[in-house]
């Protein structure tokens, strides 16, 4: 296998939780990025919105989302940094949502498109499954990625992982 998929950074939440996870000073030497997330919010609800921002810019974001609730599906247009839903405090204990965010051409001088598949999981009918496509209307290369729950903190044992994909040129 070619040396094209590289580990960059991992963060695992300790006791007490954290409000957000940020990857700073992202190397500009890859072609694409992948963020893998296994996380749960302390917020007292079934599911929590995952908010993703680049370079600390929480604006300039538009999103198309296909969302399943466990019993129905619908599609939405969103103008803030929602990237699906992860597990939260009223969901089954010890259960963590799972997400993968794909960010191609993150160093380019074009606007940045990305896609994500995100699930919340819960031992009940109600749980979120989301396919998301988003546009960050900025020509700046991505140097920082921030992952935050819309409410509450990331619970202990939540983890986020950043990988770089290098094209064979």
């Amino acid at each position: 296998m070619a040396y094209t998929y590289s580990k960059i950074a991992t963060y695992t939440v300790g006791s007490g939780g954290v409000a957000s996870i940020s990857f700073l000073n992202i190397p500009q030497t890859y072609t694409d990025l992948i963020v893998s997330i296994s996380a749960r919010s302390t917020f007292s609800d079934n599911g929590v919105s995952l908010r993703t921002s680049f370079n600390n810019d929480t604006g300039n974001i538009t999103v198309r989302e296909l969302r399943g609730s466990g019993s129905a599906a619908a599609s939405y247009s969103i103008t803030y940094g929602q990237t699906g839903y992860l597990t939260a405090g009223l969901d089954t204990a010890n259960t963590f949502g799972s997400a993968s965010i794909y960010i191609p051409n993150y160093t380019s001088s074009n606007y940045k498109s990305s896609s994500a598949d995100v699930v919340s999981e819960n031992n009940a009918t109600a749980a979120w499954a989301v396919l998301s496509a988003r546009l960050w209307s900025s020509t700046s290369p991505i140097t920082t990625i921030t992952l935050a729950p819309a409410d509450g903190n990331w619970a202990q044992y939540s983890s986020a992982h950043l990988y770089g994909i290098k094209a064979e040129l």
Partner: protein
Amino acid sequence: MASISLKYKSKQGSLTAPGDVDPGAMIPIATTTLSTATATVTFSSIPQEYEHLQIRMITRSTNTASTGGDWVFIRFNGDTGSNYTWHRLYGSGASGSADAATSQTSTRVGVSPRDGTTASAYGAGVCDILDYTNTNKYTTQRSLVGNDRNGSGEIVLYSGLWLNTNAITTITLLPEQDNFKQYSSFALYGIKRAGA
């Protein structure tokens, strides 16, 4: 049943020998392509040194029906109890829907064209299992799968929950009914932890 021996492990320590190239963060652990119809595929003795697992598969069912697909089920560590949940976001090409089931004896990670549908068409899928050795977490799997049968088909985002905190050492894949058809293929990858 096909049981697959593990051929590769992550390279540890310094690279010293000429040609001793770091293979990156995504390491092939085991692959099988079925030479005959097979009821179950099992990855056993899964190494515990990775952060995540990923399964990539193409599948077709031997069920001879001329319409529809069969789901691909997954079990962990040989647990056949009613300890699994799944959630599904489904698109048929004409509409979308979502559903779920609890207290299942497996969760779901794929869909296979039945053998009476368009010949030689296989379903494709990628399943991610994050933090598979973390004993503070129940296991969540997330799978993006689908197939097109030249006139029908489906695309599905599955999630599944195994209500158990044990580290995953064995993965078993099985078809909804009958067997996986010859040439169905399953590859297991380990994704390294950053800094490993």
